[in-house]
């Protein structure tokens, strides 16, 4: 226990002994990366199969508050990158984790975040093999930012992506929408809302494997994070060159999430999720995919919500309960609470 501070100071970023102690005691003793070099040296036999490809992705995580009902920034940082690998059909293997820590950050908080990352990585079957820490002056950061990058292997034969979507494919989700976004809005405190919601934050690697096994014709998957279901679908529809029609009556939504949206004038289709994905698969495999997802905790609320059709490419519409239709466009900027 060379680390005696309770809070991070600039000394912990200076490249000296204080930094080394912070890294060893808070980070590497938990993650146990292989070797002592500032790079991980890795091999997995799946990678050497002919036709296998390496999948590589990254995301920075900047959530406020750092801890919230159902998760924390560490859990997000692991799940987010695991999911970006998984939705492309890759088996997630290795993660890097880089921390930008604001001076004054509580070290106990860092330890909780790191523990949460380690637990989530274990659940997902990935290893955090390399990392970095930087300390920035107070007022130049926000507690802690985490950037994870992930490497996985796409086995030979797996070929999914928006370009594989065809008219007639069915659109599915793995559960209720907007829990994460609504939870964070309430947890931030500045709107003084109180609600019993948990973030949906979850790793979806096992769920994707289950879907690939049950519905081998799966065309594409994407996690519905920032910008929500609506943004993911708009991107996919545009890349696929198809139109998508959703059924309002099929969209799974908790009453509390609807309540937050009504109070603030928000649209739940644009709320962020951190454990929800949208899938396109052939109509005849849709039920199998739903069944496979529902067998897993992170797929309890799986259901069909619409289908792709040969309309205006990139156009996403919602058929309302009245039979009316409205365009579900890309969001313009961010969703702002409205009074009118």
């Amino acid at each position: 226990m060379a680390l005696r501070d309770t809070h991070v100071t600039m000394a912990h970023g200076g490249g000296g002994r204080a930094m080394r102690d912070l890294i060893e005691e808070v980070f590497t003793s938990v993650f146990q990366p292989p070797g002592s070099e500032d790079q991980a040296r890795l091999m997995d036999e799946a990678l050497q199969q002919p036709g296998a490809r390496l999948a590589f992705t990254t995301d920075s995580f900047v959530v406020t508050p750092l801890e919230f009902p159902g998760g924390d920034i560490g859990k997000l940082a692991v799940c987010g990158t695991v999911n970006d690998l998984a939705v492309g059909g890759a088996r997630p293997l290795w993660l890097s984790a880089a921390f930008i820590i604001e001076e004054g950050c509580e070290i106990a908080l860092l330890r909780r975040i790191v523990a949460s990352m380690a637990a989530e990585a274990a659940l997902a079957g990935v290893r955090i093999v390399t990392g970095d820490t930087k300390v920035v002056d107070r007022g130049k950061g926000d507690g802690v930012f985490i950037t994870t990058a992930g490497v996985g292997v796409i086995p030979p034969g797996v070929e999914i992506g928006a370009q594989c979507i065809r008219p007639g494919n069915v659109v599915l989700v793995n559960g209720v929408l907007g829990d994460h976004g609504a939870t964070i809005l309430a947890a931030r405190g500045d709107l003084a809302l109180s609600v019993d919601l948990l973030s949906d934050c979850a790793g979806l690697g096992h769920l994707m494997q289950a879907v690939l096994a049950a519905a081998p014709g799966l065309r594409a998957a994407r996690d519905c994070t920032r910008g929500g279901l609506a943004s993911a679908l708009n991107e996919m529809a545009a890349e696929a060159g198809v139109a998508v029609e959703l059924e309002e009556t099929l969209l799974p939504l908790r009453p509390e999430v609807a309540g937050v949206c009504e109070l603030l004038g928000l649209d739940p289709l644009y709320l962020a999720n951190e454990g929800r994905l949208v899938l396109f698969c052939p109509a005849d495999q849709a039920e199998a995919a739903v069944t496979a997802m529902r067998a897993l905790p992170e797929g309890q609320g799986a259901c069909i919500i619409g289908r792709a059709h040969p309309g205006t490419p990139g156009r996403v519409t919602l058929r309302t309960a009245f039979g009316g239709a409205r365009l579900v466009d890309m969001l313009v900027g961010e969703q702002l609470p409205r009074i009118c």
Partner: protein
Amino acid sequence: MCLGIPGKIIAITDAARLMAMAEVSGVRREVNVACVAGNDLEALVGAWTLIHVGFAMSLIDEDEAARTLEALRDLGEAQEALDQMAAADEALA
């Protein structure tokens, strides 16, 4: 304009400042009840109000609401009668 939604008053939180807790689909937020408060603040608990920018602006009149829904039902029955008449007409034609 004027996003307003029905919320139920579930508790008085600060009588001096006329603040109460309102609930909308399980979401709670403190609101000001100056516009709907009578003499007995506690009597508000359980009442439905129309909430706008953190204020309970109006008490919702349950009877009026029922009447409006009834009018819809009546219209529906009239419609059914009309449809039946239309069907009968067609059958006769």
